[in-house]
C-alpha cells in the first residue's frame, strides 16, 4: 500500500482574494441544509435521537451490550441466584458492592443475606458481570442511573436489584447440578477426585 501525497496549492488566486465566490458557495451549502432539514418530512439529515420525548423509548436505541443499572437474576423458584461467592465485590474497582452471606439451608450453597450496590460509586465497568460464575448479576437493564434527591436513595439493596431481575435460562450451579456426573466420560479435566 502506497501513501499518496495530495499537494495543495497555497498560492492565492484572484478568486480567493475577492472572497465573495467562496462565501457564496458556503452560504449555498448551509442554506441547502437549512431548507432540507426544515421542509422535508422527518427533518432531512437530522439524525439526533430524540431522547426525553415522551413517545421515544430510549431502550430501542441502545445496543444490547449497553451497561445500565444492575439487576439480580432469579432461580426458578423466584429466589436469588446469587451464591454469595464474593467474586463481584472482589473484582469491583470502585468497591461499591457489599455482600453479606448467610446459609441457604440446602447444605450446598450460600446465599446473600444482603446484597448492596452503591450506584453513585459504581463506575459502570461491568467487571462484576464478567466475574459472576452463575449469571446472577447483570447490567442489561438499558436503564440509566436515575436521579435521586437523597444519596441514600442511590444505594440499591437486594429487593430493588431483584425487582429488575428475571429468571435466567442458565443452568444453576448447586442443587441437582452435578457436573461430575454429567461430565463426558474420559475427560481428564474431571478425573481428579478431591476426596
Amino acid at each position, binding site marked *: 500500500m502506497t501513501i499518496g501525497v495530495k499537494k495543495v496549492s497555497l498560492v492565492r488566486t484572484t478568486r480567493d482574494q475577492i472572497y*465573495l465566490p467562496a*462565501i457564496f458557495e*458556503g*452560504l449555498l*451549502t*448551509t*442554506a441547502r*441544509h*437549512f431548507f432540507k*432539514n*426544515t*421542509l*422535508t*418530512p*422527518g*427533518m*432531512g*439529515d*437530522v*439524525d*439526533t435521537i*430524540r431522547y*426525553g420525548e415522551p413517545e421515544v423509548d430510549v431502550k430501542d436505541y441502545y445496543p444490547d451490550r449497553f451497561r445500565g443499572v444492575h439487576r439480580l437474576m432469579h432461580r426458578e423458584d423466584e429466589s436469588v441466584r446469587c451464591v454469595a461467592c464474593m467474586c463481584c465485590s472482589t473484582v469491583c474497582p470502585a468497591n461499591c458492592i457489599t455482600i453479606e452471606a448467610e446459609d441457604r439451608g440446602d447444605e450446598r450453597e450460600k446465599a446473600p443475606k444482603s446484597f448492596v450496590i452503591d450506584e453513585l460509586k459504581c463506575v459502570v465497568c461491568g467487571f462484576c458481570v464478567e466475574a459472576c460464575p452463575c449469571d446472577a448479576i447483570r447490567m442489561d437493564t438499558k436503564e440509566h442511573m436515575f436521579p435521586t434527591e437523597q444519596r441514600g436513595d442511590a444505594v440499591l439493596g437486594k429487593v430493588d436489584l431483584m425487582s429488575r431481575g428475571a429468571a435466567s435460562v442458565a443452568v444453576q450451579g448447586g442443587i441437582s447440578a452435578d457436573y461430575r456426573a454429567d461430565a463426558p466420560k474420559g475427560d481428564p479435566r474431571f478425573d481428579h477426585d478431591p476426596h
Partner: protein
Amino acid sequence: MVTYSRLVLLWLLCCVGILPTGCVGDDPALVGGSAPLTIQTAPGRLVFDAKTSEIAVKVTNNTDADVFVSDFRIEGPDWESFMITDDVGSSALAKGVSVELHIRSQTADFVGGLRPSAVAAEHLSAPAPAPDSFREGSAKLVFGVAQVRRPDDVQAQTVPIRFEESPWWMRYALPAAAKILLLVMAFIMPLASFLTWLERKQSAMMQDRVGPNMANISLGPLKIRLWGLLHVATDGLKMLFKEDFIPKRAHRALYTLAPLFGLIPALVVFAIVPFGDAVCYDGLFDTLTQADVDQCAAGRGGTPMQIAHIDVGLLYYFAIASIATYGTVLAGWSSYNKWAVLGALRASAQMISYEVAIGLSLVGTLLVYGSLEPHTIVHAQMDTYWGIVLQPIALVLFFTAAIAETKRAPFDLPEADSEIIGYFLEYSGMRFGLFFLAEFIEVVFVSALITTLFLGGWTLPFGVLGASGFSSALACQVVFALGGLLFTVLGVAIWRAHKNGEFVGALVGLAGLAQLLVAGWSAVTGWGTELPHLAIVLIGMLTWGGKILMLCWLQLLIRWTLPRFRYDQVMSLGWKGLLPLSIANIVLTAVVVYFMMGSLPA
C-alpha cells in the same frame, strides 16, 4: 369633508372658549374699512387649510354701488409664501356680485405658516410666529376698495387669516407615539426576541441538529411547543430572575449605564426608517392618488409612515451609531476586568474603523438618489430602479461593514467567546440581556437600512404597486399568484415535514390559497388597479416586513456559515479593502452621475 382632527380641534377650542361659537359659519363683521365701502368676504375670517395649503375666499359686493376692488395682497410674516392664484387684479365689482378668490401657498412644504420664508423674516421685523397651532392675525388679506365714481379714494380693507391646523400633539406627538408603538413595540422588539430563538433554531437546522424544542405550554394532555418558539419567553424569564451581579471593584454608575448606552441608540435609530409611504386619515377606504399621499406624507391630513421625517436622515443614523460605541467601551472599562477591557478595546477600534467604510459606502447611493432622507430615497427608487441595481458594489460594501458594526461573526472579535468572552464578560441577568437584545435589534436595523437604501423600502419590484393600486390587472394577478404559490407550497411543506405542524401549515397554506383566489378574482374581473388606501398601506407594510425578515435570515445564515476573522485581518479588510473600494465606488458613481445628469433624479 371635515377631517376628524379638525372636528376634534374645533370642538376643543369651542369648549375652552377660545373661539367664538360661530366660528364655523360666516362672520359678517369686518375688520377695518369704513362703513359704506365694506366688502363682505365669506368666511369673514379666512382660514388657511393646511391640507390643501390654500385659502378660499368669496368676495361679495354688498354695498349699494359698483366698486373697484384692487391690489389684493397678503400682509404679515408669512406673506412671501403666498400668491394669489386668481388674478382679479383691479376690477369692477358690480353691486351684489361675488367673486371667488384662491390664495395658495407657493412652497409645497409650507405647513400652516410655521416656516416664514427667509425673505419675509428679513424684510419684516414682525416677531416670529409662535409655534402653536392656532394663530390669528399673524397674516391678513389686504385689498383696496374704491367707489367707481371716485377711484382715487381707495379705502384699505383687511381680513385676518387664521392658520388652522391640528395642535402639535395631534400633528406630531400622537402620530409619533402611534408609530413608535406600531414599529418599535409591535415589530422591532418582538422580532428581536424572535431572532434570539431563530438564531439557535436556524443554526441547528444548518448543522443538522434539532435545536431548542422543549419549552411548552401544557393544556392538560396537550403540550403546545411551536418548535421551541416559547424559549423566547423562558429565556426572558431566566434573564429576569438571574442574579444581578456587579463586580466589587466595578464602576457602579457606568456599569449600570453601559447596557442602556448599548440598547437606546440601537432603538433610537429606527426613527428614520420608513416602513410605508404615508397614511391618510380621511380616505382609508377610498382610492387615492400619489399626489394625495404626498400631501399626507407632508403632514397634511395624514402622516408619513416614518417616526421622524427629518432631512438629515442618514447623518442622524451615523451620529447615533457612533454613540453605540460608548455602550461597549463603557461596559468593558467599568467591569474592572482585563478581558472585558480587551473586548472593549477591540470593539471601539473595530466600530470606529468600519464606521468610515459605512459612511463612505453610502455616499455613492446618496449621489444617485440626491437625498439623505430615507423616505425620499425610497421614492427616488420607485421612480428609477432599486439600489441593488444602481449601486450593487455599495450594497456589498455596506452589508459587510454593517455586519462588522453589529459585532457579530465573522466580525465578533469584541465578543470572541473562545478567547476573551468579550466586553460584557462580567454582566449577568437582564443587564446582559440588554446587550444581547441590542445586538439583535442592530441586526434588524441593518436589515431595515438595506431594505430602505437598496431594496426599495416598502415598494414592490418594477413599480407594480402604485399609490392607487396595481399598475395593471395583470400585475395584480402576477403578484398574488406568485405570493399564493409560495405560501401554498410552504404550507404544504410545513404540514408534511413536521409533527404537529398541521395547524401552522394549514394557516400558511390557507393564506396562500386566499392569495390565489384573489389572483383568480382579478383574472376574471380585471380587479386590482384601484385599491382602497388602507389595502395599499397594509401591502406596503407587509412587503417591508417580508424584506426585513428575509434579510435577518440572511444575516443569521452568514453568521453561522463564515469563520471568524483574525484581528489583523479585520483591520486590513476594513482599511485596505472596504475603504478604498468605497472611495472608488464614489468616484465611479460621481462620474456616471455627472454624465447622466439629465436622466437620473440626482
